[in-house]
């Protein structure tokens, strides 16, 4: 990679009691990139995020932010990090504004103008002076985002950020993240259970299972061309495809096969020529969910995974 990573996890491990929650995790996060963090329940997502946010101390290994260790340079590194861990719990008995003021005072030199700016960014200007206890979950999420952005972080950690947002809110949120990633070069790390969400939002996903990172992949990697073919009679279709040496996978009424796009017209032609009834030939894209379940074995509590 030509770019320097903003955040780097080096051999991060966490043992609680005798249980190894996180096992030797290595991960680099780059500016301007949104990285999704996926894993079944209990895989260690939240623990990893809490270690990155300075809430938990790693048993061994370290988190580096721009080359500085979070453990050794807590104040320097954390001033570059914005965090929303699970639901943003605010002081309910104070107004949204006072909450932001509170967090602003914990950073160096955040002006009132900057608070106003962030409030407008997240669209809260009309109700910012109301008590947080009167806010809906979605409004609290917005306020949570506002506090995370106050100090213009270079790295944003979001744990389940769209929880409680309505579809319009989610869309807006996504656009927002894209914007700060592209325009300000912020590196974003998002964990979520909503796989479709991650799919729409992220450039890259990291998958964790049983405390180990099992895969990191770029989302825009060119998918191998899969097609769904449905035609009758089934037996003849199977023969035809096997004869051409194409891999087959039965899916409902038809087959999924891997074939280059240029060869599709010729394939249809020969099927029609052989008097087959062609109902559908369409590009088939595995959803992230399929890939995810495939990789994690579908099981929530799979046995420990060894590479």
């Amino acid at each position, binding site marked *: 990679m030509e770019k320097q990573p903003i955040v780097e996890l080096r051999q991060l491990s966490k043992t*609680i009691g005798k249980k190894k929650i996180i096992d030797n995790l290595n991960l680099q996060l780059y500016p301007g990139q949104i990285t999704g963090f996926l894993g079944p329940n209990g895989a260690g997502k939240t623990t990893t995020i*809490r270690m990155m*946010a*300075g*809430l*938990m*101390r790693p048993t061994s290994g370290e988190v580096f932010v721009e080359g500085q260790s979070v453990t050794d340079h*807590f*104040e*320097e*590194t*954390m*001033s570059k*990090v914005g*965090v929303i*861990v*699970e*639901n*943003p*719990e*605010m*002081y*309910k*008995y*104070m107004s949204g504004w*006072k909450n932001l*003021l*509170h*967090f602003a*005072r*914990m*950073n*160096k030199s955040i002006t009132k103008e900057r608070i106003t700016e962030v409030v407008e960014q997240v669209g809260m200007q009309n109700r910012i002076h109301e008590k947080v206890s009167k806010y809906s979950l979605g409004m609290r999420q917005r306020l949570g985002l506002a*506090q995370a952005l106050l*100090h213009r972080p270079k790295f944003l950690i979001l744990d389940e950020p769209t929880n409680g947002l309505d579809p319009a809110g989610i869309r807006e949120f996504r656009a927002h993240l894209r914007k700060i990633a592209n325009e300000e070069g912020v590196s974003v790390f998002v964990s979520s259970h909503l796989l479709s969400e991650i799919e729409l939002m992220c450039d890259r996903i990291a998958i964790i299972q049983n405390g180990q990172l099992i895969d990191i992949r770029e989302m825009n990697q060119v998918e191998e061309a899969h097609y769904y073919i449905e035609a009758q009679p089934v037996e003849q279709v199977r023969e035809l495809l096997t004869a051409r040496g194409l891999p087959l996978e039965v899916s409902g009424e038809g087959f999924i096969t891997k074939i280059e796009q240029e060869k599709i017209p010729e394939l249809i032609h020969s099927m029609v020529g052989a008097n087959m009834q062609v109902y559908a030939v369409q590009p088939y894209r595995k959803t992230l969910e399929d890939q995810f379940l495939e990789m994690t074995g579908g099981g929530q509590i799979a046995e420990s995974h060894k590479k």
Partner: protein
Amino acid sequence: MLNLIRNEWMKLWHKKATWIMTIILVIMLIGIAGIMQWATSTIQQTEKTPSWEVNLAENQAMLKAELANPNIGKAEKERVEEELALTEYRLDNNSAPLDPNSRELYVVDSHGMLSMVTLFVVIAAASIVATEFSQGTIKMLLSRPVKRWKILTSKYVTSILYALFLTVVAIVATIIAGYLFYDSSGGSLLEYKNGSVVEISYWGRVLTLYGLQFVGVLIYTTFAFMIGSVFRSSSLAIGLSIFLLFMGPNVVFFLSRFEFTKYVLFTHTDLTGYITGNMFIEGISMPFSIAVLAVYVLIFLVISYWSFMRRDVTA
């Protein structure tokens, strides 16, 4: 650090409980004075109280009789001699003591009312860390570019500031109650010092008593703060602190014949005993008490910081 304390102060005063406790304190201090005054006024109307000279003369005769007793202990003898010297000084110099029903004596004697301040400050100090955990805001607070010890310090300082604030409120309320329900009267305060009787300043005495009482408030505040930050449960911290506030001195009283009581915290939480002569443990002095208290406070704080700084936040 100043900003952190401002934050804590802001959060403290946005909680309704803080206001309610402050208002209750004022109402109780003034209300109790009113009720007491009303109660005494209904009883004492019939009989006429004798003048202070008559009282002191009786007292003098009694003390002399006591001294004449050959079986009197050494400590007891010293105490009686002191009291006798004070009594004789008053009679010889025609120097009246504070009138029992005067505003001045009321204010002096009300220093014990600061235990109410203790009660309220304990509640605030116990919850200042614990509620951050119970409401989940701790993860927002600790993922900031501020070291944990600074955050804990700001919370401790805020607890103490609140204690100081309530103490001042209590003193002012007591003085107001004094003006509302009691009349001023002459009289002086005497002290037996190095074998001679000296007159001491009234406000000096008031400040000394309230100051020493405030030390007790600080001890309980620190204790509640420790329990609250270690166990992250404000109810446990409040319950335990209040239990000890009421039980501690009694337990010490029962155990007073044992040597180790000298090192028990509750022997020393009420330092005003050294001024009013209510110290019932033998062989301890003010500097010793202060040393013991300092050690306890240090231990409480070390435990608080140690547990807060190394804790993994899972709330």
